C-alpha cells in the first residue's frame, strides 16, 4: 500500500520542477510547458486525496482542471503565435518593449 504522502511528495516534486522551469527557461513555449507540468502535479494530488478520502469530487475537479488547461493552452499558444509574428522571436527576454 502506498502511503498518501508519497503521492503528495511526487506531486510536490513535479510542481517544483514546473516552477523552476517557469522561472529559468527562456523559450516561451518551454515556459508554457512548465505551466502544464505544474498543473499535472496538482492534478495528481487532487486524485490522491480523492482516493484517500473516498470523495469523488476530487476527480471531478481534475476534470475541470483539465478543461481549463486545454482552453488556456489554446489561447496561450495563439498569443505566442501573435507575439512571434510581431517580434520574430520566441525568447522571452526579447519581449521587452515595456522595459523602462
Amino acid at each position, binding site marked *: 500500500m502506498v502511503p498518501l504522502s508519497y503521492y503528495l511528495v511526487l506531486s510536490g516534486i513535479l510542481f517544483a520542477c514546473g*516552477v523552476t522551469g517557469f*522561472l529559468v527557461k527562456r523559450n516561451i513555449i518551454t515556459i508554457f510547458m512548465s505551466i502544464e507540468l505544474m498543473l499535472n502535479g496538482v492534478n495528481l494530488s487532487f486524485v490522491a486525496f480523492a482516493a484517500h478520502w473516498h470523495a469523488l469530487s476530487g476527480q471531478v475537479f481534475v476534470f475541470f482542471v483539465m478543461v481549463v488547461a486545454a482552453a488556456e493552452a489554446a489561447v496561450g499558444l495563439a498569443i505566442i503565435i501573435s507575439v512571434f509574428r510581431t517580434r520574430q522571436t520566441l525568447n522571452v*527576454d526579447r519581449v521587452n518593449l*515595456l*522595459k523602462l
Partner: protein
Amino acid sequence: MTPNFYLWMIPLLPLAGAAINGLLGKRFSRQTVSAVALTFCIAAFGWALFVVSKFSGLVLPHVETLAPWLRAGNFQVDFAFQLDQLSLVMLLIVTGVGSLIHIYSVGYMWEEGGFYRFFSYLNLFMFFMLTLILASNYLLMFIGWEGVGLASYLLIGFFFVKDSAASAGKKAFIVNRIGDFGLLIALFLLIKHFGTLNFVPLFQNIASMPVETASAGLLTTIGLLLMVGACGKSAQIPLYVWLPDAMEGPTPVSALIHAATMVTAGVYMVARSHTIFERAPMALTVIAIIGCLTALFAATIGVTQTDIKKVLAYSTISQLGYMFIACGVAAFSAGIFHLMTHAFFKGLLFLAAGSVIHAVGGEQDMRKMGGLRKKIPYTFWTMTAGTFAIAGIPGLAGFFSKDEILWRAYQASWAYWAIGLFTAFLTSFYMFRLWFMTFFGEYKGEPESRAQGHDSHGHDTQVHEGHGHSGVHESPMVMVLPLILLAILSVVGGYVGVPGSLGGQNHFDKFLGPVFRSTAPALNAHHEQPGETAPPEQTTEGHEPEAGHGTEIIFTGISVSAGFLGLFLAWLLYVNKPQLPQRIAASLGSFYHAVLNKYYVDEIYATLFVKPLIDGSTSILWHGVDQGVIDASVNSTADGAREVSDSLRHMQSGNLRSYAGWIAAGAAAVIAYMIWMGTR
C-alpha cells in the same frame, strides 16, 4: 419714561460717510467727497448739540441700549451708549473740533491724491472715537479704542508710498497694541472679579469696596494695567515713541488724532475709571509720577527740535503728561478741563502749522522759516493765540486749566508742582521759540519763486507744492476759518473753569462734579486727600478757607512768571542775540546731542526689544520652526513618498521573467502562510 435720543446715530453718521466715501468715493468729484464727509460730520455735531439742549432734564447716567451683544452665563454685554456730563463734554469736543478739522482738511488736502480715501478714513476715525466716548461698557469702549488705533495707522501711513510713513504707521499700531494688551488684562480681571463690564453696575459694585492700602491689591492691579493701556494710547513713558513718528501723516491728522482726540482717549478712560483709581492710591501715585516724568522729558526734547511739527508733537506728549498728573492726584475734572483747552489750542497750533507749511511750500524746518508774520497774517494771529494759550499767559484758556492742575498737584506733593512748574517754563520757552523762529526775523527759506516741479500727489514730503502760486502765500479761507474759530475758543474756552480764587465759579468743575463725586470713597480725615473727594456740596474750594485762596493766588503768580520768563528767554535767544543758541548748545556738548536725538530712546528700544525679537523670530521661528519643522516635515513626506515609489518602481521592469519571479515569490509566501496556519 427715559427719552431715547438715538445716541447710536451719533457715531453712525460718520460711519455712513466713511462707507460712502470709501466704497464710492473713487468715482466722486472732490466736491462730492468733501460734501459727503462734511455733511455727516457736521450732522453728528448737530445731533450732539441737540442732545445738549435736552440735557438738563435727564436722569443721569442716561443709558440707551441698542442691541444685545454677548451673553455668556451671567456675563452680559450690550451695544449700549451712555450719556453723562463727562461723555457730553467729550462729545462736544470731538464733534466740534473734528468738524472744524474736517473743514480745514478740505482745503489742505485738495491737491493730494487719494482725496476720497483721506476723508473716508477721517470719518471712520470719528465713528470709532465717538463709539469710544459714548460706550456704556468697557468692551464697546475697547472697540472704539482699537478702532481709533486702526484709523490712526491708516492715516499716519496715508502717503503709503513713503517708507517712513508706512513704518511710522506700523510703529504706532504696534506700540499701541502693547498698551492694549495691558488694557485687555485689566478687562479680564474686571470680568473675573466683578462679572460685568458695564459702567453703571460695575462702578456701583466697586464703590462699595474700601480704599486699598496695600500696594498689590486687586484694584491697584487693575488700575495699573489700565494705565498701561493709557500709556500706549496717550503716548506716555514708556510707550510714547510712536507719536513723534506719527507726524509723517498729513497735518490735519496730527491735529485731530494726535492732539485733540485720540491721544486723549487714555485720559478719558482713566477719568471714566476714576472709581477704581480712587480706591487704589498706589496706582494714582504711579500715574502722577509717569505724568510728571513724561511732561518733563518731552518738554526737554521739544526745546531742541527744529521741525515745526515735531516740536508740537513733543509738546502734545508733555501736555498729556499734565493731564495724567491731574488724574494722578485725583483731580479728574481738572484733567478733563485741560483736555478740552488742549484740544482747542493744540488743534489750532497744528492746523496753523499746517497753514505755515502750506504757505512756504512744504518746508517744515523752522530754521528755514522766519519773518512770516507780515506775509501770512491770519495764520500769524491765530497761531499767536494758540501759543499764548499753551504758554499759560493769563486770560487765555491754557492759563486756567494749567494752573488748576498745578494747584491740585501741589496739594498732593510739592514735587509734582515743582516739576510741573519747570515744565511750564520749558513749554513757554519752546513754544515762543517756535513762534519767534517762524514769524520773526528774516525769511531764511528758498527764494520767493519756488517753481520746483513738485509732484503733489503724495509722493513728496508733506504737501502743497506746485500750486502754481509762487512764494509765500496765505491759505485759502476754507483753511483759515477753522483757525479763527479755534483761536476764539482758545481765548474764551477757559472761562468756564475760572477758579474760585480768581473770583469765578468754576462751572466746569461743578458740571463734572456729579460724575466724579458720586462714587468717592469714604473719607478718613486725611487732609491731603485731593479736593474731589470732599463732602459733595459746593465748589471744589469749598473746604478751603480763604487763606487757601491766597496761597493759590501766589502759586498762580509764580506759574505766570514762569511763563513770562520763557517768553523772555525765547526772545533773547532767537530775536535779540541769535548767536547764543549755538554757543549754549556747543557748551552743553554731548548732553545737548543726547537731547537732540531724543535721548536715543528709539535706538535703545531697537537694541533691547526690536532687534532681539526680529533675530529670535528669524532664527527660531522662521528657520527653526517654519522651515525646519513644518516645511521639512511636509517636504520629507513628499521625499519619502518619492523614494518609496522609486524603489518600488523596479518591480515594473518590462522584463517578463522578473514578473514571473515575483509571481513565484508571492506564491511561495502565500503557501508558506497557509502551511503555517494549517499547522497551528
